[in-house]
């Protein structure tokens, strides 16, 4: 093998290809009444090529000047170029590129991997390579070049390019359980990068147990002077998104007990001049509220009732366990002084099969004004002599 301290014939250069950015203008405020101001503007324009001293961004687009931050979810695109600096011909030129992170080493697809190329003096060979960044932390791009000199000597050198990858977004989720088995997911997305970003599309891909309904307002129509805030997200700002997940009809309530997967949050964003990024969360998990063996939901209840006028509520009893329940209902009025039960207490309701429903209609008479809470329903399973207490099942307003 060649002595690595010998001078190399070829040099390798790597340039990151981000989107081009607009040149920043030199700006100087100009008094419209001052003829001299126009002269100054012309002089500045001749020096920089910009057309006006008033716009912060010029109409020229410039190549990336320095290595900007790169974030998880973005695509790392770079141009790798090998140039023959010497006056010899180099044969069997091959370049390999690997991306090394703390956990793995990925070989990047490169057309110049095969040692078939030949470089004459002052000739260059280059290629554009793209790779989606899927990890955070320190990344090292390793480029290895092998070639033969004119004398047939095998030469080899490597170059290392280190760059850090940071997290661009921070996602926090909150679950809200509605009374009707729906789950509301609030996603708070915070921009943890250093530049403003535009959230192009934030969607929830539901798991097979749920249907998803997005509850976010559509983008406001264009207005020159918008009333709402900016369409972009500044660094450290947070935006919230709301989704309603309804359990699919074909699954019984049993499937939703315990821990269930809700779905994945898919986020697509754009930063300066269209630099695109995409991230997906892992499956979001939700702990279902426990209902025990017997669940009581109020299917019908009036919102307001008149004083001393009897009203009825319809309760649905759902058997959540695996055995049949033989139910007897007892109504205890001591917990609700403002309402009086007007149905038979101590009734035997009958058997409810596993996962079955049973509706019960109960009557009440209000005797006090204001917001009254309905409590005191006691259901006893005669098979196992177990009593299930249901209090504060609903509220009515008595006027």
């Amino acid at each position, binding site marked *: 093998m060649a002595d690595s301290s010998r001078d190399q014939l070829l040099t390798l250069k790597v*340039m990151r*290809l981000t*989107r*081009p*950015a*607009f040149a920043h203008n*030199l*700006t*100087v*405020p*100009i*008094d*419209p*009444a*001052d*003829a*001299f*101001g126009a*002269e*100054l503007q*012309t*002089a*500045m324009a*001749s*020096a920089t*090529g910009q*057309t*006006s*001293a*008033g*716009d*912060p*961004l010029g*109409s*020229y*687009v410039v*190549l990336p000047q320095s290595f900007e931050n790169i974030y998880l979810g973005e695509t790392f695109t770079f*141009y790798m170029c090998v140039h023959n600096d010497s006056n010899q011909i180099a044969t069997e030129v091959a370049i390999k590129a690997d991306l090394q992170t703390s956990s793995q080493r990925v070989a990047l697809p490169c057309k110049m991997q095969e040692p078939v190329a030949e470089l004459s003096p002052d000739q260059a060979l280059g290629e*554009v390579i793209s790779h989606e960044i899927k990890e955070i932390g320190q990344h090292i791009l390793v480029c290895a070049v092998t070639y033969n000199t004119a004398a047939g000597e095998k030469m080899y050198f490597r170059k290392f390019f280190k760059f850090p990858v940071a997290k661009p977004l921070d996602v926090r989720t909150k679950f809200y359980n509605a009374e009707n088995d729906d789950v509301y997911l609030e996603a708070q997305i915070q921009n943890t990068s250093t530049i*403003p*970003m*535009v959230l192009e599309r934030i969607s929830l891909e539901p798991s097979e147990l749920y249907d998803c309904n997005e509850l976010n307002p559509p*983008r406001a129509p*264009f207005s*020159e*002077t*918008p009333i709402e*805030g*900016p*369409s*972009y997200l*500044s660094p450290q700002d947070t935006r919230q998104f709301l989704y309603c997940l309804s359990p699919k009809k074909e699954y019984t309530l049993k499937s939703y007990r315990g821990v269930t997967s809700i779905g994945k949050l898919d986020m697509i*964003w*754009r*930063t*300066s*001049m*269209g*630099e*695109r990024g995409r991230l997906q969360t892992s499956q979001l998990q939700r702990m279902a509220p426990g209902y025990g063996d017997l669940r009581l939901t109020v299917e019908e209840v009036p919102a307001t009732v008149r004083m001393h006028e009897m009203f009825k509520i319809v309760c649905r009893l759902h058997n959540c366990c695996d055995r049949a329940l033989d139910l007897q209902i007892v109504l205890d009025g001591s917990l609700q002084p403002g309402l009086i039960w007007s149905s038979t207490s101590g009734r035997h309701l009958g058997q409810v099969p596993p996962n079955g429903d049973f509706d019960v209609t109960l009557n009440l008479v209000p005797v006090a004004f204001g917001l009254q809470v309905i409590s005191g329903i006691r259901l006893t399973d005669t098979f196992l002599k177990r009593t299930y207490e249901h209090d504060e099942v609903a509220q009515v307003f008595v006027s």
Partner: protein
Amino acid sequence: MDGAGMSRDDSVVNLDDMAQTTTSRGSKGGHSPFDRRTTAWIPSSRAAQVFAQPLPAADKRLSYTMPGIMQEAPLGDPVGDLAKKHLGDVHAAVVRPSVERSTDGLRRLIASGNLRSAVDLTGVLLAAYNQGFGKAHSPSKHTVESLELWCVRFQLLMALKMNTLLHSELETFGDLEAPDMFFQYYPEIYPMKRGSMVPFSMRVIHAEAAKFTPNPSDALTRLNKLIANINAIMSNLSHGRWEDGSVGELSDDDRLESEALWKSRLNAVRQSMARTFFTIKEYHLASASLAQVCHSENCSLEEKSRIYSSLGRINLELGDQQQAAEWFQKCSEFVDPTNPAAKGIVIGHKAYQKMFYGNYAEAYELMLEAAAANDANVDVSHLS
């Protein structure tokens, strides 16, 4: 000038002579309606209080504003030095003109783009007014000409991005509202004249330069004060009074011209605000300021199309292509169809949007088309 008991060193310059020479900017110290309109300013309460009393004799008057340049060494010629280093003395590629040490010479330097030499020349000319290096905080007299020199110096410093020097030299001027910044303070030189000697450009630079300090919101405070003063002036005009509120002869033409002037100055201040918002990354507010300018009644079509194009570019830079497309659409509505450069601008907008989505090949084709439509308004070079 009385020789005995002077509190200032007047030996360097004879202000009577200076008052007679006219600079390339016009006399300003005169009494034509144009002079009155452009130098009108409502004095601050502090200055008004001083003018309410009879002024002391010229030699016993206080000096409130005491500026001086803060850099002695010439700015040098980095481009010339670099050329010499790489190309050698023989090729001496960069030739700097030599001009006479006067305001005409200053204009020649600026017109030919030699901004650094121009700054050095302002330093030399200001030394003649006793406001050269090391003279900060020592008393000196102000005239329209000396303040114009300062104004040119500040404009050049801002164009050269020499913000620390700009800031330190602006500091001695305070808020530009000291009594000695008004014509009323020098009745023997400018008899019967009221208004501010501070050029309007200097006021805007003084405000906008604060955006480069650790407290950029100072710029917004100052700009808002400017807007308040301009609004007060326009209110006076609409009531048939002179700009500073005094009652005098004001023909309809005069009033209309003045209103037009101050409206355009208001737009200049709004654009300054937009640039300040841009610097502090409040792009949303920058857009709002620029939209205000476009909606004002005296905004020309050319101005509108320029601003809409600028707004589109700002939004692309942010990452918001939808909004940018709307702004570009508005721009094309106001672009002058007889202007050959206009077609190039519209194609340029399409090219930017192609670049946004990574379609560099299509963007390149569009750029070539734009270049064919007009020459060199947009230029791009990209590896793809």
